[in-house]
């Protein structure tokens, strides 16, 4: 009879640490552990010595000191006397802002381009192929700089809107495209506006309730209730009625030229536009490829089977192909969102005050706290990445094919 394990020759010999599979794993891990400790000790020791030589210590006290610099665009109150921590928070919010805006537009662009690339229309599919290849194969930094140059060089200065026969006019009298940014009307909430907002939120809930009811009716009785038009009606009609009954409580603050610049409205700075747009078109090209791959991954047999059951093409797409394609599309889509968020750190190249530019740029340079700043910066991005991958794992588990 043969034995699988090494025969026990009695007693323990030192050579078994290397030759015996039972002990070898422990040996290797102990060696790895010692090496790890040695490396960390070496680096830490160097760090301590270097900090002592430079007369520095490791502390986050500088976060409470006044930052002393201005940022172009802040979502929360901020001036140059605010603390460095406030500047970092401004940066974090700006990063999240551009990331969310970018993800939404990139998804829209990507889905449209991905579906059109599969179109049977030769010109349209070629055009989309050109778009995808052009944006995928050129660094996003170059796109950001090109679009920033368009924003600042091609668009007119606020001056051009002045006079009786101005060189430039506002789009629909509401939107001003200038080289300092785009000015859009801001909503003004007067008394009673909360009722309108509340009714609108209630309509959203009612719309989903109606769709759920239509689905239930379909599954119970086989009757198909119309959904598209009733949904729109439920969504907008009550809110509009209340809006006019209450005498238009929500107004618009339209930007107007005052002095050398526009006042009123909301200003979206040129750096934000450039970054947002460039990240959207760049990531959109990648998403288009993911969407295309996802739709192509659904086998032809599914479409044919649905057609054999007598379904119409649009219903085949909505009920058979897309639900299956989603399972393939969503994971790479979420990793594209992650990439977009990380690429938003290129804001520093166009002077958009994201967290890399405030905490990792100006604060770092002014205080000289390189290690603390970079560490904090990395922890922030790491937290976002881990949060997004947690969402992705949860989604993957929920749509996983249930095997029994």
């Amino acid at each position: 009879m043969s034995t699988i394990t090494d025969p026990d020759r009695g007693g323990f010999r030192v050579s078994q640490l290397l030759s015996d599979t039972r002990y070898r794993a422990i040996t290797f891990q102990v060696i790895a552990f010692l090496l790890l400790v040695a490396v960390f000790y070496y680096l830490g020791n160097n760090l301590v010595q270097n900090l002592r030589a430079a007369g520095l210590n490791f502390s986050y006290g500088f976060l409470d000191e006044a930052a002393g610099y201005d940022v172009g665009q802040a979502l929360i109150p901020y001036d140059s006397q605010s603390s460095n921590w406030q500047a970092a928070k401004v940066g974090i919010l700006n990063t999240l802002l551009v990331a969310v805006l970018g993800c939404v537009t990139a998804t829209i662009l990507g889905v449209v381009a991905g579906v059109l690339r599969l179109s049977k229309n030769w010109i349209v599919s070629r055009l989309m192929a050109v778009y995808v290849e052009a944006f995928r194969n050129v660094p996003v930094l170059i796109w950001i700089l090109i679009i920033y140059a368009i924003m600042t060089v091609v668009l007119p200065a606020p001056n051009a809107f002045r006079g009786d026969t101005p060189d430039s006019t506002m789009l629909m009298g509401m939107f001003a495209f200038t080289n300092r940014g785009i000015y859009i009307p801001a909503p003004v909430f007067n008394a009673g506006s909360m009722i309108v907002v509340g009714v609108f939120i209630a309509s959203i809930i009612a719309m989903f309730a109606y769709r759920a009811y239509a689905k239930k009716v379909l599954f119970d009785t086989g009757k198909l209730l119309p959904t598209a038009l009733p949904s729109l009606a439920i969504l907008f009609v009550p809110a509009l009625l209340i809006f006019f009954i209450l005498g238009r409580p929500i107004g618009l603050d339209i930007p107007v030229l005052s002095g050398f610049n526009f006042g009123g409205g909301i200003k979206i700075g040129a750096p934000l536009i450039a970054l947002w747009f460039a990240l959207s078109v760049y990531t959109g090209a990648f998403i288009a490829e993911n969407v295309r791959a996802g739709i192509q991954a659904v086998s032809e047999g599914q479409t044919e089977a649905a057609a054999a059951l007598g379904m119409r093409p649009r219903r085949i797409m909505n009920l058979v192909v897309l639900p299956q394609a989603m399972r393939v599309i969503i994971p790479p889509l979420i990793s594209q969102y992650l990439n977009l968020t990380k690429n938003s750190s290129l804001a520093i190249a166009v002077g958009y005050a994201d967290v890399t530019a405030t905490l990792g740029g100006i604060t770092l340079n002014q205080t000289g706290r390189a290690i603390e700043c970079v560490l904090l910066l990395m922890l922030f991005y790491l937290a976002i990445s881990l949060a997004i991958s947690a969402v992705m794992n949860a989604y993957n588990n929920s749509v996983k094919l249930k095997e029994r």
Partner: protein
Amino acid sequence: MSDTHAESVAFVRDTAIPPAPPPNAQAGAIKWVRANLFSTWANAGLTIAAIYVIYLILVAIWPWLTNGVWTAPSLSACREVLQGEVGACFSVLTERWNQLLFGFTYPSDQYWRPGISFLLLFAAIAPVMFFKLPRKLLIITALYPFVAYYLIWGGTILTPIIALLGFVVGYLAYARLVKGNFAAGFFAGIAAAALVWWIGGMIVGVMGPEAPWLEEVPSRDMGGFMLNLILGVTCVSLSIPLGIVLALGRQSNLPLIKGICVVFIEFIRGVPLITLLFVANVVLAYFLPPGTTFDLILRVIIMITMFASAYIAEVIRGGLAALPKGQYEAGDSLGLDYPQAMRLIILPQALKISIPGIVNIAVGLFKDTTLVSVISMFDLVGMIRGPILASTEWNGVYWELFSFAALLFFIVCYGISQYSQWLERQLATGHR
């Protein structure tokens, strides 16, 4: 049974009628246009919209391209030539091509050196890319890093020779001992190479020649597209072995080693490359022994290599996971130990599956090398944003410069991705 006989009927056709041509609307260009462009009303609308978009783009770009000025010393001279018409000022490219390609401090009489290295790159990379070329050509690939280093940096020839010698001695020691035990061969190889480099370092220190054959060019003089290529090629080739090690470590069943690799990979993949470049620029120096000065380019190479290796490790892990379990079990049942099974059975197959993914990572990494301009290195983008756009002659020439940069990157990246697709078709045999 049929009663009809050939003799009893008046006429029997014994040749086929030549096929009639299809109706005009069902053939040739017209059919193609109707089927592909105007099959439905929605389709026709899309076609017209697409043609309109193409028309708009052409109208905007065509005069700009054809009116381009190729000889003018500055933007203002360019505008004089154009006299208010729309036109590109391509003379910035003819005037500053050397800065765009080589950076602004690389000695101009030495441009032939990076030029030759660039041409040799194709010879070195060909045997790696095309499996049908004779395997002996891989010797060129192995020699290339030393030749290219010597050509680009110059200085004493002893440095690359001793580096090469170390690798040769290390490989000989490895080849001699690997038959018995992989670990012994591996560590003996490293020890032998380190010994050669240590002795060689002393020799170079003692007898560096006074006047080297090739003038020494310090790293800070590297710039332009050359810097992008140096960073891209170096970091990709260094990160592949590191990525393999990390992927194997992540698959390992030793908890500590697996833990180290997982933490490293997830950490690197979770942070943007810019933060790692900040580390290279301002933080790394704190972790080195006091008094050591370190080339910025070397620090950047270290950080980008770490960055790329984490991504490549994930691609290779995908390849390892895609292999059927039977391959691992077959290796075990043949009595191979872990290094043998990995080297002879698992890795060759897993790497083959991962090649397209690795190529994608390489393209992404090459594009990401432009990020070094943020830490004030003068790569192609850094040259454009820094010295050229800031100069009095060319202040304001955005489109020509950015289109040139975009074009260079597009050519390289599109070429590599086309290669990757071709390779996928080549490798598609036998799987699925």
